[in-house]
Structure formats: C-alpha cells, structure tokens
C-alpha cells in the first residue's frame, strides 16, 4: 500500500487479502474451536428436517388413537411407547416439531420486526419518541412476562395465533431495548455522519446504514428467544392455556405427561421433554455460537 502513487491508477497491491469466503472460514474456525456450537448446528439441522419432513416419515398418524394399546412402555412397535389414548408417542413427538417451530419462529419474527423498529426509532430520534416507547416497553416489562402472556391468552382465547401474539408481545421489550441501545451508540459514528453527508434521509440512514449493523447482536437475541418462546408455549399448555388438543405439541405433551410421572408412565413425559429440551438447548447454544461468530473481539 505504501508503494502507491497518489493519483495513479496502477497499483501493485500488497494489500491484505481476505478471501470472500472468510465468513465461512470463520464459521469453521468457531466450530472447530467450540465443538458444542458445532453440535448445536447439527441439532438445528435435525430439528429443521423434522419440522419439514416429520409428518411424512413417522410410522403412525400422530392423531390416531388406539394404534396400540393405551399406556404401553417403549417397544419395537412403538419406540416411545403409547399414551393414554393409545397414540404413538414417537410420531407425536416428531410431528410436534413443526407446530412448535411455527409458534416460536412466528412469535419471534413478529417481536423482532416490531420491537426492533420501535427500538431503532427510539434510539435514533431520542426525545419524545424515546420517552413514549420507553414507557411502553417499561409497562410491558413491569409485568412478570409469563403472567402477561397468560393474561393475553386467557383474554383473547387460546388459539395458536393468540399464543403467538402473546409470546411476541412479551418478547418485544427485549428487541426494543436492544435495538435502542445498539442504535443509540451508533447514532453519531463516522459512517452514519458520512451517510448524512451523502444525502441520505434520516430514515434511510437508520434503516439503510445503522440497522444492518445491529443485526448480529439481534441474531443472538433471536436465537435465545426461540428457545424461550417454546418454553413459554409449554408453560401455557401446563396451565391449560396452550395449544388445542389433539394437536401434537411438546409443551402440552409434557404438561399432560407430567401427571403420569408419579404413576410410573415416564415415557409420556421424558420423550417430549427431551425433544423440548433439545430444541431449547439447540437454540440457546446457537445463540452462544452466533455470539462468538459475530463478536468482533473474537474475530482475528
């Protein structure tokens, strides 16, 4: 670089070379350094596969009662046993992936979009925008979040959509706060000033220049929240405000199965519980992994 002549178009670049695939190599590096993250991405792929193809792969109709005798322990015919209506637990666990993923993905997507837009505006413009949204977010946060979700579902009726909305609302403050913080520290950095000089309108500066830069930390939050959204739906099911029967859903299966622990029908709770835990676990680990991936401190 020091050999370049000002104004000359020819350049013999001894420039630092970062191949375009650096992101992938970085990913590989993070994975190799942190086997747990590698594992998490593997599990994630598995969950996605189950959600996409699960219903076509399972041995039994997850809704069909009496495909086996009721309350049979795991066997070759029914890998995860059968429940009190003689339904195949394995089929139900696998098929449930789709609904659970649907709930958490859509809930998180809504809260991300709404929350980050609100938060970004508050962080960027400050003043009254900030104060009003701040109060709004504080108000939501002042409720114990799970109780708020309960209230919303109880008031609006327990449909899948309402569970999604309730979960979205209680997750909203996290995105709003994070977006606000991340935007406000970038509000006057060099490239933002430069963007203003380039004739960008304020909104374009915010959503064209700043927003893409706050995505990495938001991604981490998204991943952590996915797991939490699933748990939240499960908790709602436990108190009877969850998904309607007979839809297979992990939370409701665990909630129903929980009552069978004492009577010894452990397979009713263990398998959906494991699936639930695995999914939440995966999302949490991915969150950590993404943090490593996007944390500039860890990028050499």
């Amino acid at each position, binding site marked *: 670089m020091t050999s370049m002549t000002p104004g000359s178009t020819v350049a013999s670049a001894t420039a630092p070379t970062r191949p375009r695939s650096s992101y992938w190599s970085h990913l590989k590096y993070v994975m190799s350094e942190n086997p747990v993250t590698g594992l998490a991405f593997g599990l994630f792929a598995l969950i996605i596969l189950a959600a996409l193809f699960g219903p076509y792969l399972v041995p039994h109709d997850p809704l069909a009662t009496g495909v086996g005798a009721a309350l049979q322990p795991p066997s070759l015919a029914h890998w995860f046993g059968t429940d009190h209506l003689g339904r195949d637990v394995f089929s139900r666990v696998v098929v449930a992936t789709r609904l659970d993923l649907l709930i958490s993905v859509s809930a998180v997507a809504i809260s991300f979009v709404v929350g980050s837009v609100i938060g970004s505006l508050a962080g960027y413009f400050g003043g009254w925008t900030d104060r009003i949204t701040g109060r709004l977010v504080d108000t939501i946060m002042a409720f114990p979040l*799970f109780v708020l979700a309960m209230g919303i579902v*109880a008031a609006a009726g327990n449909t899948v959509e309402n569970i999604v909305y309730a979960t979205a609302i209680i997750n909203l403050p996290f995105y709003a706060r994070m977006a606000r913080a991340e935007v406000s520290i970038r509000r006057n950095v060099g490239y933002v000033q430069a963007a203003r000089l380039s004739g960008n309108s304020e909104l374009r500066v915010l959503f064209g220049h700043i927003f893409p830069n706050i995505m990495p930390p938001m991604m981490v939050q998204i991943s952590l929240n996915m797991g939490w959204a699933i748990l939240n739906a499960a*908790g709602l099911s436990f108190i009877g405000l969850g998904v309607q029967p007979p839809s297979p859903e992990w939370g409701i299966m665990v909630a129903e199965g929980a009552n069978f622990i004492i009577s010894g029908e452990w397979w009713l709770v263990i398998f959906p519980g494991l699936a639930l835990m695995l999914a939440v676990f995966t999302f*949490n680990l991915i969150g950590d992994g993404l943090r490593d991936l996007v944390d500039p401190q860890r990028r050499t």
Partner: protein
Amino acid sequence: MSLALKARKVGLRLLEAIPTVIGILVVCFLLTRALPGDPAAYFAGPMADAESIEQVRRNLGLDQPLPVQFVNYVTDLLTGNLGMAISTGQPVVAELATRLPASLELTLGALLLSFLIAVPLGVMAATRPNTWVDHLCRFLVTAGVSLPTFFTGLALMYIFYYLLGWAPAPMGRIDMMYLPPETVTGFYTIDTLIAGDWETFRAAIAQMALPLITLALFTLAPIARMTRAAMLQTLGSEFVRTARAAGLNGRRVLVTYAFRNALLPVVTTLGMVFSFLLGANVLVEKVFAWPGIGSFAVEALVVSDYAAVQGFVLSMALLFVLLNLLIDVIYTLIDPRVGEES
C-alpha cells in the same frame, strides 16, 4: 462526593416509574375486563338463575360502565382498598400480605442461590475460556434453562420425595407439624431465626429446598452467561493489564479489578432474571402447593377474578419499581460514575 446528585437521580428514577405504573393500571384493567366469561355467573353458583346472577353482578359492581368501574377501582386503590378476591373470598390486600412474602421468599431465595452458583461458574468459565471447563459450564447452565420448570419440579419431587424420601412432603411452606413463626418479615426462614427457633427454621428450609433448586436451575444460565461475558471483557481490559503489569497478585486482579467491574452488567440483568423467576414461580408454586402469589394469580385469571388479578399486577408493578430502584442503588454503590455524567 455528590450524594445530593445521587439522591436526585434516585428521585427522578422514582418519578419515571409513575407513568409506568399508570400504564400498568390501565393495561391491567382493560386486560381483566377483556377476560371472557361472566364472573357474576360463575360465582353465583351452579344452580343460580338469571336474577341471582344479576344480584351478584350488582354486588361486584360489574353492572357499571367501564370508565366508572375504572374510576371506582382507582379511587379504591387510593384508599388502600384493592377489593375482594372472589376466588379466595379474602380482601386482595390480605391475600397479598400473606402470599407475597411466600413468593418473595422463594423468588429471592432462588435468585440468591442462583447467583451464588452461577457467578462462580461464570468466573470459572471466563478464566478458562474455550476449555472443557468452559464448555461444561455452558452445557450445564443451558441444560438448566432448557427445561420447563414444571417438569424439573415434578422430576425433582419424584426423585427426592417419592423415590428417595429425602425431601419433606411438598405441601406448602412448612411441614404440618410446625406452626408458622410469628410474622415479622413474612419470610419463614428469617422469622424463625428471629424467634430463635432452629428446628422450624430447618423445616422451612427443607420445605423450600426443592422449589428453590427448581427455580435456580432455570435462572443459572442468564446470570452465568452474563458473568462470563462481563468477566471476559474486564479480564481483557487495559486496566487489568495495568494491574498485572504492576505485579498485583492473581486474586486481587481477579476480584478487585476484574470481578467488581464485571459485576455491574450482572447486577443490571438481575431485574430481568427476577421477572423470569416470577413467571416460573407461577408454575413451580402449583407443583409444590406453595401458597404464593403466582398460583394465586393463575387461579384468579382462570376464574376472571378482576380484583385479584389487578391487585396482583399492581403489587408486581410496585415490586418491580422497587426492585429496579434497589438495583440502581446497588449500581450506584459499586459504580462511582453513576450520577456524575453531565
């Protein structure tokens, strides 16, 4: 230094909470009114006819228009009257007075336990990043947060009460052979100590153990994660390098220089963790028959018990304001910079 400045900041902080509390009142009032079902019909009893339902409705003040109901509610609030919880037949204030300490004892206990376990775990992980210790810590705390609390609670109960018989029967705050201690703080553990009654203290602790562990397991992750991240940051900071270059010994660098600074972000996350805990409480209280405010709220919600739900939420809101204030005070104590920025 600038005590006055800090006091002013605290005062401002209190003022800031007022609109939030008002917002909560409104949201909560509307939410409870949106609850489906007719509480009047529900409480009139299984054989009631239309007339008796109407009578119950009048008794409950539910025949008034919404704004009137709201004004009545707020007026009652200002006079310290939170109404009657229909589902338990007690004044909401009395319910809160007995149940809040039960929940708080559990929640704060769990927070403390979680803090005591998670912080060392986080520090341990941060001092050995990307070693097996780090991975193990991460794995353990993540596993903890990945389980629904009602599942963990039941599983623990199954193992430690049903199978092993180590834990006492999960029937509330204290074993039936003991009388609750004289109420001073409402926390059985503290009240028994004040009374000097060690056996009852032990009984209360034994009763609390399983729900505490259940809740703590759930909240290890956020605290441990934050501790690890904050410690990594302070350990990599320039002032820690300076301290090391000045030859300070390892403990002093770790504790006085790195840890105390790392504690700041950890303290700020406690508020959020507390919120999580209260939510988890709802489920755990149900499993362990814990007479707390969470189970009260669930029951009240299910039967559309307006007064109880509102009282519950209001107390929660105040609790949060107080808690956040407390966190701010703690923050002020450990961070001299607070209140100084222009």
